[in-house]
C-alpha cells in the first residue's frame, strides 16, 4: 500500500517534469513546475524529511514560483513580437540530446543503486554526538553546529544574489511583479485578508523559529514564511519599491551574517575554535543566530521579488 503510493508519487513527479520540459506553452510549464515543487515536498515528507518538505513547499515551489511568474510576465512582448523566438531544435539535435540524457539516467541510476550504504557515516556520528551541539533537532545541530560554515556561506549567497540583481536591475516602474492594471481598485477581500494573515504569519514564523531547536522548523522555514508575507504585501501595494536601500534595510540585510560571524569568531576565544559555542551558551546563541538568519533570509528574498533596492510602507 505504502509503496504503491510512492510509485504513484514518483510517477507523478516524472510526468510533471516531462510536461514542464515538453509543454508548448511557457505559462503552462511554469505552473506545472510549481505543482512539481508541491509533489516534491510530498515525496520528501514520505522520505521522513518534514523540514525539507516545509522548506521546499515554501521556497522551492512558493517563492521560486512567484519569481518565475513575475519574470514570465516581464518577458511577454507588449505587442506582436519582431523576435522570431529561438529556433526549434533540428531532429538530429533532439535525438542527440535524448541519447545523452538517457545515458546520464542509466549511469546515474546504476551508480546510485549500486552504492552500499556505509556502516559509518558523518550522519551517524552527528546523531551520536548531537548532545554536544546544544540543540535537540539533528538537522539544526548539523546546520548551526557541525557544519555552521555552510549555513553562514549560504546566507552570504543570498545576499550576493541580491547585490548581483542590483547590478542588472531594471527601472523601478518595470521591476518585480510590475504595475497593476490601470483603473482597478483594491479587491474588497484584500484588506480583511491581510489583517488576518499578516499577524498570523508573524506568529507562525516565530513559532517555527523557536521550534527549530527540537523539532521540524528553524531559521529557513521562518525566513521563508516572512518572505512570503513580504511578497504578499508587495503584491497588494502595502510595500512599494524604493530606489535606494535605507540604512535600516542595510543593517537587516547584513546583521544576521555579522552576528553569526562575530559569534563564530568569538568562539576562538570563548570556546575551542572558530564557529564553536561555549557549552553553557550554545542554545541561546544558536537561537540568536537563527533569529538574525531568518531576517537575513526573508529580506533579500522579498527584495529580489520586488526587484527594487529597497521597500517603503504605504498605508491604504
Amino acid at each position, binding site marked *: 500500500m505504502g509503496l504503491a503510493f510512492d510509485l504513484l508519487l514518483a510517477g507523478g513527479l516524472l510526468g510533471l517534469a516531462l510536461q514542464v520540459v515538453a509543454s508548448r506553452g511557457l505559462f503552462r510549464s511554469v505552473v506545472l513546475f510549481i505543482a512539481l515543487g508541491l509533489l516534491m515536498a510530498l515525496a520528501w515528507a514520505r522520505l521522513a524529511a518534514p523540514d525539507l518538505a516545509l522548506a521546499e513547499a515554501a521556497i522551492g515551489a512558493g517563492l521560486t514560483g512567484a519569481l518565475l511568474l513575475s519574470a514570465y510576465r516581464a518577458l511577454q512582448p507588449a505587442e506582436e513580437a519582431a523576435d522570431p523566438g529561438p529556433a526549434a531544435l533540428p531532429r538530429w539535435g533532439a535525438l542527440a540530446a535524448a541519447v545523452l540524457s538517457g545515458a546520464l539516467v542509466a*549511469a*546515474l541510476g*546504476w*551508480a*546510485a543503486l*549500486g*552504492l*552500499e*550504504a*556505509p*556502516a*559509518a*557515516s*558523518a*550522519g*551517524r*556520528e*552527528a546523531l551520536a*554526538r548531537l548532545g554536544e551541539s546544544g540543540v535537540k533537532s539533528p538537522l539544526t545541530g548539523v546546520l548551526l*553546529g*557541525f*557544519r*555552521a*560554515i*555552510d549555513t553562514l*556561506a*549560504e546566507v*552570504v*549567497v543570498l*545576499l*550576493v*544574489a541580491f*547585490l*548581483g540583481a*542590483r*547590478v*542588472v536591475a531594471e527601472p523601478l516602474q518595470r521591476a518585480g511583479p510590475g504595475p497593476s492594471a490601470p483603473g482597478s481598485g483594491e479587491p474588497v477581500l484584500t484588506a480583511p485578508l491581510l489583517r488576518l494573515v499578516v499577524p498570523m504569519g508573524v506568529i507562525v514564523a516565530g513559532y517555527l523559529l523557536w521550534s527549530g531547536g527540537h523539532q521540524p522548523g528553524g531559521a529557513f522555514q521562518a525566513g521563508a514564511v516572512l518572505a512570503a508575507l513580504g511578497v504578499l504585501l508587495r503584491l497588494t501595494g502595502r510595500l512599494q519599491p524604493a530606489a535606494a536601500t535605507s540604512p535600516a534595510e*542595510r*543593517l537587516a*540585510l*547584513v546583521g544576521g*551574517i*555579522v552576528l553569526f*560571524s562575530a559569534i*563564530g*569568531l568569538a*568562539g*576562538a576565544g570563548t*570556546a*575551542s*575554535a*572558530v*564557529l*564553536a559555542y561555549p557549552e553553557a551558551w550554545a542554545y541561546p546563541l544558536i537561537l540568536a543566530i537563527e533569529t538574525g538568519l531568518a531576517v537575513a533570509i526573508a529580506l533579500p528574498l522579498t527584495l529580489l521579488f520586488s526587484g527594487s533596492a529597497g521597500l517603503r510602507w504605504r498605508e491604504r
Partner: protein
Amino acid sequence: MAELGALSLPLAFFLPLLTALAAFLLGARQAPWLAGIGALATVAAVADAVRRVAAHGPQAYHLGGWAPPLGVELYADGLAALMLAMTAAVALAVTAYAGAYLHGQGQAAERFWPLWLVQWAALNGTFLSADLFNLYVMLELVTLTAVPLVAMAGDRASLGAAMRYLLLALIASLAYLLGVALLYGGTGTLHLREVGELAGAGGPTAVAAALVTAGLLLKAAIFPLHAWLAPAHSSAPAPASAALSALVAQAGVYLVLRLWLWAFPALLSPVVGWGLGGLGAASVLYGSLQALRQSRLKPVIAYSTVAQLGYPLLLLPLAAVPAAASQAWQGAAYFIVAHGLAKAGAFLAAGNVYYSLGHDRLAGLRGLAPELSASVLALGLAWVSLMGLPPTAGFLAKWQLLSGALAGGQWPWAVVVVLGGLLAAGYGFRVLATAHAAAPPGGPVGRPARRLPWRMAATPLLLALAVYLLGVSAVPALRLLGQGAPEALG
C-alpha cells in the same frame, strides 16, 4: 584552546567577508580606505598562514572544533598556501587598481566592492576547504559574485555573456553536486582525503568522478567547454577581468588537480590521465589559435586564458610516471601561479589602454608605446612569461613540465608546451608590434585621450615584476609546494 595557532586559516575567509559587509553597510564613499584596510588585513592573515605552512608543514583547522567527517576542515598544504599567496598578490593589485579605475563612478563603485570582496573570501575558502559540500557552496559564491561583475557594463554584449556564463556555471555546479551526492552515498563522508581513502576505484566512484570533473572542467573553461569564457572575461571592467582570469577560472583548474590527486588517485589510470591531459592540450592549441584571430586586445588576452588554463592538466598523465611526476607537479603548480600574476598584469595593462583611449581595437593601437610607456612595458613583460621565456616564472613552469614530459617518455606533451609557447609569441607580438609601430602620418591614432592615475600605471608593472622575481628566485616557492605534497609527487 586547541589549534588557536592556525587561526589565520579561517581569518583568510572571514576578513574579506566582513570587509565586504562593512563596505555594503557604509556605502561607496567610505569604501576605498575600508577595502584597503580589509585587503591589508587579509594579506597579513594569508602571510601568516603561508609562514606556518612553510615552517611547520600542512596546517589543518577544524571549524567549530568538530573533526571530520562530522565537521568541515580547512586545510592548507603547500599547494593551497601557494594559491592563497598568489590570490593575495593579485587581489591586492586588483583592489588598488579598482580604487582608481572606478573613481568617480558612484554606483558602479558601490556595487563593485562588496561583490569583489566576497569573491576574494570565497576564493580563499575554495583553496582552503577540504570538504566537498562546503566547496560547492564556495563555488556558487564565486559564481554569483563573478557573473554580476561581467554584466556590469549593462550593454547587449556583456549581458549576453553574463547570461551564458551564469547558465553554464549553474549546470556545472549541479553536475559537481550530483557527483558529491554519489560520493557521500558511497563513503558516508564529505572530507576530501577520507573520500580518497574510502571511495576506491569502482564503477559508481567513476560515475561520481566523471560528474564532478565535468562540472569543474566547465568552470575552468577547458576545451570543449570553453566557449563562454572569452566573451565573459572581455566584457567585464578591467579589474574584474583580471580577477576572473587570474583567480576564478584558475580555481576550477586547481580543484581538478586537487580532486584527482587527493580524492580519486585510484581512478587515475593512464587512459584517464591521457584523456584529461588531451583536453588540456586541446585547450592550449585551440585557445592560442583563437587568440591569433581576435581584432581587439581584451579578447586576445581572454583567449590566451583559455590556452593557459590547459597546461596544468598536463600533470595528470604524468603524475603516475615516477620519473616525471615530481617535475611535472612543480611545473603545473608553478604554472598556475605564474599565469595568475602575468594574466592579471596583462588585463590591468589592457584596462589602462581602454581607460586612456576608450577602445581596445588592435588597429587603433599604432604608436601607443611612447604615450602609455609603463602600461605597454607591463604588457610586454607579462607576455614574456606567458610565452615561457626566461627569466620568468612562466619559463620555469614550462621548463619543469617539458622536462617532466621528456623524462616520462611522453613527448606529445612536450610538443604541446613548445607549440603553445610559439603561438603565444605569435599573438603577443602582434599586439606589441602594433603598439611599438611608428605612429601613422598625421599624428598617432592612439594618442591617449585621458591621463592615467599613477596607481593604475604602477599596478600592472608591479605584477609583471613579481613574475620575474619568481622566475629568478624559485626555491622558497618550490620548497613551500613540497609541504604535504602527495608522496608520488614530492
